[in-house]
């Protein structure tokens, strides 16, 4: 998902790129809680029967589920924020390696898109002087191409 704010002259802008995430953190916790309640219910019944070896499998599965929810929620906090003010372009980025920043000179800043063979998604890069950083990895294919076009036009404004 992209969110764009521009000044009236379209020179200064802020572009935020975030992954689409339809599951809120509260909903994730609630759904996980439902799984826990069901698992505890089944676990208690199995122990009452004498079938305690079911418990490690229930636990393992809950752990897997928890890891999945943590992973997808963590992924939903990733972002690329491109802020252009005057002659400077600043990129703030959060991905699995953590939060980082890059400052560029607006006149030299370039947007590159590698399309590659048709069955791979494209990649979008921002940078200058041979050093580029990938942005928009969380976007869908057409959104990425559209955003690249939009960014180029904004940087030229």
């Amino acid at each position, binding site marked *: 998902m992209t969110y764009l704010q521009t000044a009236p002259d379209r020179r200064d802008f802020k572009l935020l790129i975030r992954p689409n995430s339809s599951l809120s953190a509260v909903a994730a916790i609630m759904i996980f809680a439902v799984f826990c309640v069901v698992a505890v219910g089944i676990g208690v019944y199995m122990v009452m029967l004498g*079938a305690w070896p079911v418990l490690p*499998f229930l636990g393992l599965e809950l752990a897997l589920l928890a890891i*999945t929810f943590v992973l997808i929620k963590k992924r939903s906090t990733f972002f690329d924020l491109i802020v252009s003010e005057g002659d400077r372009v600043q990129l703030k980025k959060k991905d699995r390696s953590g939060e980082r920043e*890059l400052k560029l000179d607006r006149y030299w800043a370039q947007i590159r898109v590698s399309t590659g063979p048709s069955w791979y998604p494209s*990649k979008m890069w921002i940078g200058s002087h041979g050093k580029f950083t990938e942005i928009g990895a969380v976007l869908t294919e057409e959104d990425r191409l559209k955003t690249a076009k939009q960014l180029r036009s904004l940087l030229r404004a």
Partner: protein
Amino acid sequence: MTTAVADHHHDEVPKGITRWLFTTNHKDIGTLYLWFSFIMFLVGGAMALVIRAELFMPGLQVVNPHFYNQMVTVHALVMIFGAVMPGFVGFANWMLPMMVGAPDMALPRMNNWSFWLLPFATTLLIASLFVPGGGPAAGWTIYPPLSIQGGMGVDLTIFTIHILGMSSILGAINIIATILNMRAPGMTLMKMPLFVWTWVITAFLLIAAMPVLAGAVTMLLTDRHFGTAFFSAAGGGDPVMFQHIFWFFGHPEVYILILPAFGIISQVIPTFARKPLFGYSSMVFATAAIAFLSFIVWAHHMYTVGMPLSGELFFMYSTMLIAIPTGVKVFNWLATMWRGSMTFETPMLYAIATVALFTVGGLTGLMMAITPADFQYHDTYFIVAHFHYVIFCGSVLAMFSGVYYWLPKWTGHMYDETLGKVHFWLTVISFNITFFPQHFLGFAGMPRRIPDYSLQFAEFNMVSSIGGFILGFSQLILLWVVIKSIRGGKKATAEVWDNPEGLEWTVPSPAPYHTFATAPEVR
């Protein structure tokens, strides 16, 4: 943070087998699942033909009784865990991301792993037939004490079940993450297509039921090799406890096999009736109700073990309750067709056959829910007829409906309608020739899982075997139809059918390798 970009093009495109081994694309993985399912369908079908060949006449003709029992057991395991479950996961992989407007599954690498566990697991299962002592021969329910006494084949089966369970759980977690977290903006839960709803509920069932099976077979393993006595009466254990645990998994498993089928026909019927699905919300709640009830009915599989009367009454009434949400579904499908502008292309024929014949299986299920009556039907051919009407007509026919419905979207070509209809009529007629007489055999008292039988059952068994062979060989037509459609034919449009509903019809046919190009907005 900066990266030197030497080459803006990606790595070489994987070619040949590497594409399929390492793919993380949901469509590739969906295709792998569907082909795997079809191959297993043929393998399991071949085993069924061994069974029917043996039962063609009274006496022992083709195989010895021990091998016959192995065929009965492995046929069921292959069909349930190798054909039907992976088949629906194949549909889920292909269609769910497209239906919710997501570019791929939430965890694509895990998706690859979930699939590639399957061939290893089923190889172990089939290999069990060739080890000393042969394969598992205790029926797919692997009841002790028979399974505790079995040879090494039972151990291989236990490992198979563990691996298949792992694959199912990883798949289920992936499906839940995809549906809950990757829906397109505007696609609220109550706007999701029914197929998506049925899969999210199926995934919940898988997550709840699979650890129970894993625990049960682990206890079997420790009873066999590590001196425990969970199920051994001689050591103070209880063989009936296994039945409770197994069916606590086993009955939800039936709905794991059937709910995605309900989802498929809920997509197909509105398209060919040219009306929206009648009672969408009630369909969603009925699916959830069936899933809930599936956890409180397990002991109807074991009325004859000697339960207290109150227990038998509870399980009888709770089982009968399932008829209500199921009836709601059947009513809604019929109401969708009512006064619709219907046409009868192959997917619709299969969907109608699913509704009609699954209902036959549902009604015989109600007969068996009645405890005193079940004492008569228990372990007879009536049960065999019942569950084939449920699983074959409910799940497999719906799968065929889904294959014909979405095949043009997958391949980009229309399938051969004439061949599709030939496949349909041969399948439906031969299925009924095979399984309808088995109701009468059961009523007359023919027990299941026997390679030889009394002369009074000869005629119906002969008819059943003839039907079985026609049914088995008819499936080669489906193979031909699919290959023909992959190789060419009339180009399919994006919509394929007359104004179908759903995001999958907004992308071109064949669906591009990466959908959705644009995150669609659902209003």
